[in-house]
């Protein structure tokens, strides 16, 4: 009973403390809100909102009189300015390449598409070559990527038609057949029609049977909310370890203030005093995790996965964060040292452990060192278990990181308690 009294007193004191309310609950929620807002969660029901890419088009292409004024450059320019792409691009035409480049340099436009004068000629001339230039602000990646992808697809259609006509020309010549311009134009036109049909069905490409890996969700939900769910998970792991350490620091603080030595003179057994303090550390981490989960579920509609894997992730995080806090504090002399460890060491370990949150949307950043490095810190194992749970993995998948978390927690707890006992009891 004494254990519970001591634990309750410590919990109440922490709940009244700015530090727990600010760092344990306020900051993680704030971070989730920032990311939610950043990725359009407030603006779009469907998720990811990206600002329109401001494109300047310089069309220097000269129409071909011999082909009824055909101009590949005009088709490309019109396509970039079409209603179909209006949601993605805000495209207008510029007078010259110099003007367009200057506008990009001065950040008045994101991307310039400079179409050369000989694009149409090169499309028909068997030996012709031409290059469309995409010029963009170096701090931007997504917008220029979108424009490059659209222009490349368009150019691939022209290239494909040209190649088809070229292949037909070579074979007709080799077989001694008459090479009629109309036949070659017919080949190019048929290729263009095939390519256009293909482009229209890109949403469900007939060339690819796309499957999700086993265990991954088949349907794509709201990407903004999924991302915020990932961020909230990262924040929960990051700040649970803060809370574990900060609440265990209470033991050092009481020793420093002289209240712990006074308590040890009372009939309450020292083991009960230490036990009460340890219970309060575990309880605070539980409160924090549950409050953050409830907030994220209500506001961000976060789906936490099946109850089994989720329970394992919760239990693992709570015992590991609390035990690690006790372990770390057992090595420190006073609250001043603890402040440095909480501010510096825990921040660094936490950032390494949750680095997958930052790499989630960086192509190529997954795997390799960014996958292995987090597993050198306890936060990394907690993050792995939570990620698996949130991705809909089975209890069997979560079991390995959960097992590691329990083993680490047991070791940290045993060492921490032994050291505190040696010090106070």
């Amino acid at each position: 009973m004494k254990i519970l009294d001591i634990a309750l007193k410590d919990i109440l004191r922490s709940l009244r403390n700015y530090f727990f309310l600010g760092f344990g609950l306020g900051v993680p929620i704030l971070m989730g809100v920032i990311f939610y807002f950043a990725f359009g969660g407030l603006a779009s029901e469907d998720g990811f909102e990206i600002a329109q890419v401001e494109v300047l088009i310089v069309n220097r292409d000269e129409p071909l009189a011999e082909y009824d004024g055909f101009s590949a450059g005009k088709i490309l320019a019109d396509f970039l300015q079409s209603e179909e792409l209006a949601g993605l691009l805000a495209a207008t035409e510029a007078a010259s390449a110099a003007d367009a480049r200057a506008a990009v340099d001065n950040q008045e436009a994101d991307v310039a598409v400079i179409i050369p004068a000989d694009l149409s000629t090169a499309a028909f001339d068997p030996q012709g070559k031409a290059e469309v230039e995409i010029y963009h602000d170096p701090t931007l990646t997504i917008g220029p990527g979108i424009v490059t992808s659209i222009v490349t697809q368009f150019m691939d259609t022209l290239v494909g038609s040209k190649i088809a006509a070229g292949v037909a020309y070579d074979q007709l010549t080799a077989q001694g057949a008459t090479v009629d311009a109309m036949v070659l134009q017919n080949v190019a036109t048929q290729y263009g029609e095939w390519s256009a049909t293909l482009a229209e069905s890109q949403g469900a490409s007939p060339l690819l049977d796309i499957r999700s890996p086993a265990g991954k969700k088949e349907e794509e939900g709201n990407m903004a909310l999924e991302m915020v769910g990932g961020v909230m998970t990262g924040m929960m792991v990051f700040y649970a370890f803060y809370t574990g350490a900060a609440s265990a620091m209470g033991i050092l603080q009481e020793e420093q203030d002289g209240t712990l030595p006074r308590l040890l003179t009372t009939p309450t057994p020292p083991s009960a005093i230490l036990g009460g303090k340890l219970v309060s550390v575990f309880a605070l981490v539980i409160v924090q995790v549950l409050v953050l989960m409830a907030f994220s579920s209500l506001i961000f509609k976060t789906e936490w996965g099946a109850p089994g894997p989720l329970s394992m992730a919760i239990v693992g995080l709570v015992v590991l964060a609390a035990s690690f806090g006790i372990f770390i504090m057992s090595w420190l002399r006073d609250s001043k040292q603890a402040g440095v460890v909480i501010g510096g060491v825990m921040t660094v370990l936490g950032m390494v452990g949750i680095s997958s949150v930052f790499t989630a949307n960086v192509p190529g950043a997954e795997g390799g060192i960014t996958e292995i490095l987090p597993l050198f810190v306890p936060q990394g194992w907690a993050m792995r278990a939570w990620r698996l749970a949130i991705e809909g993995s089975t209890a069997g998948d979560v079991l390995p990181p959960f097992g590691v978390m329990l083993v680490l927690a047991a070791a940290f707890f045993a060492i921490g308690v032994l050291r505190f006992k040696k010090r106070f009891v």
Partner: protein
Amino acid sequence: MRIIDLTINDLKQIVRDWKTALFLVAMPIGFTLFFGVIFGGVGGERDPRLPVGFIDQDGGSVLSTHLLGLLDASDAIRPIVSDESIERAEKKVGDEDWAAAVIAPAGYSERVLAGEDIALTIIVDGSTAAGSTARGGVQTAVTRLQGAVKAAQLSAKALESQEKSVDEELVTQALDNAIEAWREPPLTVSVAQSGITTEEDEGESVMATPYGQSSPGMMVQFSIAGIMSAAQVVVLERKSRSLQRLLTTAISRVEIILGHYLTMFVMIFVQLALLIGFGQLALGVDYARAPVAILLLAVTMSLWTASLGLLIGVLAKTEDQTIIFSMVPMFILSGMGGAWMPLEVTGEAFQTIGHLLPTAWAMDGIQNIIVRGLGLESALLPSGIMLAYAIALFALAAWRFKFE
């Protein structure tokens, strides 16, 4: 002179605590390196393309061989030939060892060349950035492959229309020619970035750097974190009644406020100078290419951050509050100002709100120099906005400053 004395005293008090060095220098350097590694700052020699498993169940047929060549020619993905089972391939994609896996089914080549519509199987997690990029790369290669098949078929039709006989050899030859032509397409798209140059180029441009986001980003974030210790000095002086005692001396109220403000300014300016020096010498970020512009930005950044620090020192009643009052604005101003991630990846409303904050202008100003390769002129507007913030926050802090 009294202002200087007070500043020196404050600085001594701050520097004595080794935590200061941790927050001001070690942590921003650590995080700059960390984010640099994440965003490709190291390992420049390795192939940066995304790994995509290629499982050829068609036994090295004509089309599967050509497909492998086209996948390998991609700028975005690199194929890894594998004989794993589909289950193992799914696991590798699920574990993010591969960004995707492409499976050419048995009979693929024969059936496609016979005119059947056979789809290639691709296992990919489209909800990840790597998966979505890999899917795009595979789609381009497959479209080009099928385009080559279409070209061969159209060529055969053209021959037949001229009453020439078409055999398998002719079709294969046409296909080879088309694939060969795709290796060096006659119509191409080139991508150039404004202000970026390579080592061989000369002129006013700037070298591309993977630290163009993380170096200024962490400078912006940790300059705000750094004001915590200086704000704590103000809180401690008020709590211990040192401020009141100071008023009994010859020093004026204005001098006391300016002394504390100067402390914060010097501290942040030194921090920025160290981080700029580290960026220049250790990370190769070219801050030195426009020294006057960088100096102007560092001064105005220090001025506004010091004003914020003074305001925190005024508003906080306890040391705990100082931490919260510093950390919360640090997270908001850094996150919304584009210090963690480029504002480009956020929505339009977020970008607009972000640019109401001085941190976004600090990022713009520094990136104008080190990433966009612009000159002093590009630093004037960001500096002006940061200066306006400095004046407004300082005025607020001076107005609310309490000596007891």
